[in-house]
């Protein structure tokens, strides 16, 4: 079996005239749940878009399941859930999932759709139009649409945002189960207590990697009592490093922090 599901070397992404990711290097071990954490604007979504192959102006190496990211052979094997619920609001839950199952070429779509509905706990809402669902339910439909093709790698951009604690716990149980079955998950999140559910953690800040660690090591190395404070300690430390030499050039410091 492959050691790493995703291998990234010297990744550089330019958006407009700004370099949003500069020289990133990381691995996502196969069969694990990897959490992607970081403040908003740190490049999490850009990184995920590069992995699924829809990000433009990417240089460097992004290898996914042994192929170059975005190559046609991968499209059946990678499931992507965007940050905003990207499903059709004017279709029912089942109509949406049937369409995405058809696109993924699922052999028995009826069963795949029923399974995906069960996993995200939307039983009873099958015939409901997605536009009439609550925000949390809508994002679960979007998650189900990524699951319905049974992909080997799932790239989930904030799948638990806006969900209540019970649902969040249940979804993380699902993520753990999927990885136990051999699938790889790259999951971004803002909720730090979710970090403890991951096998590995990637902490991003300003388009770079601040830490590539495990939940246990994160706590030990920072000496913080919980993931949230450990994360803040790392971000603050990184901010301090960046602003320290700039104190001799106050004009540029202000410009830098203003961005």
């Amino acid at each position, binding site marked *: 079996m492959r050691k790493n599901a995703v291998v990234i070397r010297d990744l550089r992404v330019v*958006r*407009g005239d700004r370099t949003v990711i500069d020289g990133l290097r990381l691995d996502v071990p196969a069969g694990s749940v990897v959490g992607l954490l970081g403040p908003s604007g740190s490049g999490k979504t850009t990184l995920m*878009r590069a992995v*699924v*192959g*829809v*990000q*433009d*102006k*990417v240089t460097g190496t992004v290898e996914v399941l042994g192929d170059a990211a*975005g190559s*046609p052979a991968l*499209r*059946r094997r*990678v499931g*992507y859930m*965007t*940050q*905003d*619920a*990207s*499903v*059709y*609001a*004017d*279709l029912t839950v089942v*109509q949406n999932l049937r*369409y*995405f199952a*058809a*696109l*993924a*070429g699922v052999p028995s779509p009826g069963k795949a759709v029923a399974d995906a509905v069960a996993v995200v706990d939307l039983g009873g809402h099958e015939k409901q*139009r997605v536009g009439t669902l609550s925000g949390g339910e809508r994002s679960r439909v979007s998650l189900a*649409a990524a699951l319905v*093709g049974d992909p080997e790698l799932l790239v989930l951009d904030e799948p638990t945002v806006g969900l209540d604690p019970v649902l969040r716990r249940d979804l993380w149980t699902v993520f753990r189960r999927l990885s136990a079955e051999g699938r790889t998950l790259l999951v971004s999140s803002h909720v730090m207590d979710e970090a403890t559910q991951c096998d590995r953690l990637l902490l991003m800040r300003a388009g770079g990697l601040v830490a590539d660690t495990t939940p246990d090591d994160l706590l030990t190395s920072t000496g913080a009592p919980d993931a949230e404070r450990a994360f803040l300690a790392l971000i603050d430390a990184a901010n301090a490093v960046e602003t320290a030499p700039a104190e001799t050039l106050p004009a540029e410091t202000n410009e830098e922090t203003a961005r």
Partner: protein
Amino acid sequence: MTLTLATSGRVLSQLRGDHRTVALIMLLPCLLIGLIAWMFHDQPQVVDQFGPMLVGLFPLIVMFLVTSVATLRERQSGTLERLMTTPIRKGDFVAGYGLAFATLALVQALVVVGFAVLVGMDVAGPLWLVVVVALLDAILGCTLGLAASALARSEFQAVQMMPAILFPQLITCGLLMPRDQMPEVLEWLSRVFPLTYAIEAMTSLAAGDDWSDVRGAVGVIVLFIVGAVVLGILTLRRRTA
């Protein structure tokens, strides 16, 4: 092919739930033609002369608007981004939309031409050809809308495309003034606009011409449809900023 059919099935399901859009496509052209027939109720020859042009023109405009906004919504809602990570090819996407709207255009052509005949339109040429040209005009509107949506960044801009792309064609297509009476430059300009051929075919049918007289114009319309489909595929980007 399977993915094309899955996509057109999905688009048709979306339209089935959208009664306003279906009404806009089916009923609005009828209403407009009804108003004109009423306005000229004591000059039936006006309806005979202009009716065929209008059953070609109204569906084209309506379909342009509906497709450009529908495909733009797909770009904006993130669903297109998601589709681009699945095995669907760009051709499947455009053909899926094209097929769904062509199905609708067929029903529209039958309804609108049928209604025009009902309110007194008497076409000198063969009526089935009027239906065929109306259908092609509607499909042309769809495919132009698909291609135009690539240039728009918001629904507001998509709506702005309509006057920007269609109105110059409306002025030079021969509806306001016979094209041979126009200044030479405008006449030359009208030849590169697709709407000119749509109106030319209908004018010719209204005057009693048959297939052999309109096949040139029909051929040009088909070429424009193919061109707009190719443009629609080329402007679809798998990778975006």
